[in-house]
């Protein structure tokens, strides 16, 4: 089968997976809502189109909400490309956000420098955390999946400890830090929306990660190891070092996402638990088939659905948690290699037959 046809088939398969997910959503809405029509309208149309007009504010908010998902999606892309099932993105996001907020509150700096320094320190924090599961994997062959999952909880409790015991602003009802210095905050691109200057940074990060993965030696090594670790080892690649680096990059990207989210959307640090972006990043990376360039589009899709589910819970009383079911269905079908394999098989056979016919025709033409 030709490459072009293969791509077309992949796209069609992806669309069918998404259609199935939306169909499941429809079923759930019909089962749980008194007014399915308005619930559906909230899910699909209202995020962009409200009372007869294009809702620019909502669209920009959706765009803004892709920011942390892009970062965690990129993180998962890098780590999964090296076949490292590191699920510590959650912890790295939370720690990165928390440390960035602390720098924003307690380390006064000049206007331009402060925000950059805060984000960078958050980024470094995320990267440092991932050294633990990465080194355990490389040096001791301990499953990075289990250790990173456990690490998420450890990081969460450590952050909560410092938040509650050392840095809480007791004058406020809810547990939160003192406000961050205005010099450390990431400004809004459009006032009144959730779209901050973090979004262009996320797009730049996407381009950089894409260049890194497809145009540098390190990126090539990461992808090679993901495809065949033993081959890479015996052809002289430094497998251990690259595995550590891929996870540290993943952690750094997650930490950066957390930092930008906290500095962009809040005035104080107030997360009381793991924020969930690590898991969303996983869905995003799977939708993007581990291709960094596709990550922003996948994030946009999830952010759109997320917003739709939110509106649906506000206006139609359908719980917003439906997004998790939709995500899971997409997840399962998108990652299913054998999904529609029979159709693909038929297509291959058909393509081959056509080719044979053409060859035969050409032969007959030659004979005449």
């Amino acid at each position: 089968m030709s490459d072009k046809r293969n791509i077309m088939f992949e796209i069609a398969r992806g669309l069918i997976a998404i259609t199935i997910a939306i169909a499941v959503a429809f079923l759930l809405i019909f089962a749980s809502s008194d007014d399915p029509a308005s619930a559906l309208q909230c899910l699909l149309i209202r995020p962009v189109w409200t009372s007869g007009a294009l809702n620019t504010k909502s669209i920009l908010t959706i765009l803004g909400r892709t920011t942390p998902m892009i970062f965690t999606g990129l993180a998962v892309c890098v780590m999964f490309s090296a076949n490292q099932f590191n699920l510590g993105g959650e912890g790295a996001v939370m720690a990165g956000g928390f440390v960035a907020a602390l720098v924003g509150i307690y380390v006064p700096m000049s206007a331009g420098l402060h925000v950059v320094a805060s984000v960078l320190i958050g980024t470094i924090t995320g990267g440092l955390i991932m050294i633990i599961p990465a080194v355990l994997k490389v040096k001791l062959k301990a499953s990075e999946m289990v250790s990173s999952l456990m690490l998420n909880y450890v990081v969460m409790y450590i952050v909560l400890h410092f938040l509650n015991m050392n840095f809480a602003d007791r004058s406020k009802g809810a547990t939160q830090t003192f406000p961050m210095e205005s010099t450390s905050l990431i400004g809004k691109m459009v006032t009144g929306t959730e779209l901050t200057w973090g979004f262009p940074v996320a797009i730049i990060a996407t381009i950089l990660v894409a260049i890194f993965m497809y145009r540098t030696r390190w990126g090539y090594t990461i992808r090679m190891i993901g495809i065949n670790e033993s081959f890479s080892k015996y052809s002289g690649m430094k497998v251990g070092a690259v595995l550590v680096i891929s996870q540290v990059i993943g952690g750094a990207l997650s930490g950066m996402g957390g930092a930008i989210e906290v500095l962009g959307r809040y005035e104080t640090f107030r997360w009381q638990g793991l924020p969930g972006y690590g898991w969303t990043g996983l869905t995003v990376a799977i939708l993007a088939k581990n291709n960094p360039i596709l990550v922003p589009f996948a994030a946009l899709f999830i952010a759109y659905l997320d917003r739709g589910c939110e509106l649906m819970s506000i206006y139609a009383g359908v719980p917003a948690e439906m997004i998790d079911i939709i995500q899971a269905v997409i997840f399962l079908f998108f990652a299913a290699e054998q999904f529609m394999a029979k159709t693909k098989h038929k297509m291959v056979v058909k393509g081959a037959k056509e080719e044979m016919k053409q060859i035969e025709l050409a032969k007959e033409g030659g004979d005449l």
Partner: protein
Amino acid sequence: MFETIMSMVLTSSFGFAILRITTPILFAALAAVVAEKAGVCNIGLEGIMMISSLFGVLFAYWTNSWLVGVIAAVVVGTLVAMIIAIFALKLKTDIILAGIAINLVGGGGTTFALYMFTGLKGNTAGLTTPQMLTPRINIPLIQDIPVIGEIFSGHSILTYVAFILVAVVWVMLYKTSLGLRIRAVGENSHAADSVGVSVLKTQYIALALSGALSGLGGAYMSMYYSQSWNTGIVAGRGFIALAAQAMGQGEPIGAMFASLFFGFATALSTKLEGMQGFSSYLVASIPYAVTILGLVLYAISTMKRVKKHRAKTEAK
């Protein structure tokens, strides 16, 4: 300080707490053992426990019977595991991703399902009646022995089921033809295939058993431990069970000791929480930190064993 802790640990109520806390982890760890023995990694344990704990409590409520609830939890656990199996084995979704998808459903989908079926949001605390909770069993004779009776008697019936299942799973794995097939498939699926063992069928069975076992864990959580269902009910126990499986070297008895170890760490952390001078947050992270430590120790011991083995073969 040390003495106060020791005096807390050396009480019969502490021993009782360890068994109480170990039970759900043990169920899930056994589930992980069975799946892993067949060469499939069931990371969806967390989600299966969430889903089965919810449906267990719902069925118990609808029928006002804990037994129906437990059976429903087991059935639902098995069904959810079959979803993982169909996607992972038939449609070739990476099994880790299939498991994570189930965990996603377990996280938010359960809240949605609860609302859909009952209109409740977030927890079922208002539904609980005494008939819905699994009964406590007082073991005759043993309950009269001082200390031992206080530790081992008076647990939920499911706690005893969990520890009996350790033996049952061991017998199943090592003394039955099904167990032989499961181990053969996990050890070398090509070899098993070449002698006529259906690899897929065996893995389906292993995942189903794994789902049923974690379903029991879910039932214990909502119909005894927390006395109702809530969104944070499982709280990483499915993941801890994976670690227990790894630390227990993939064996049922090893997994039991690893689970008891986590039970001990958690019991200790809940005791320390109430004490002055201990941050409840840091203390709450102990079981998870201990898990990482356990993984490290296990990995080091394995590496040493491999090295020794190599040194021996080289000497020959």
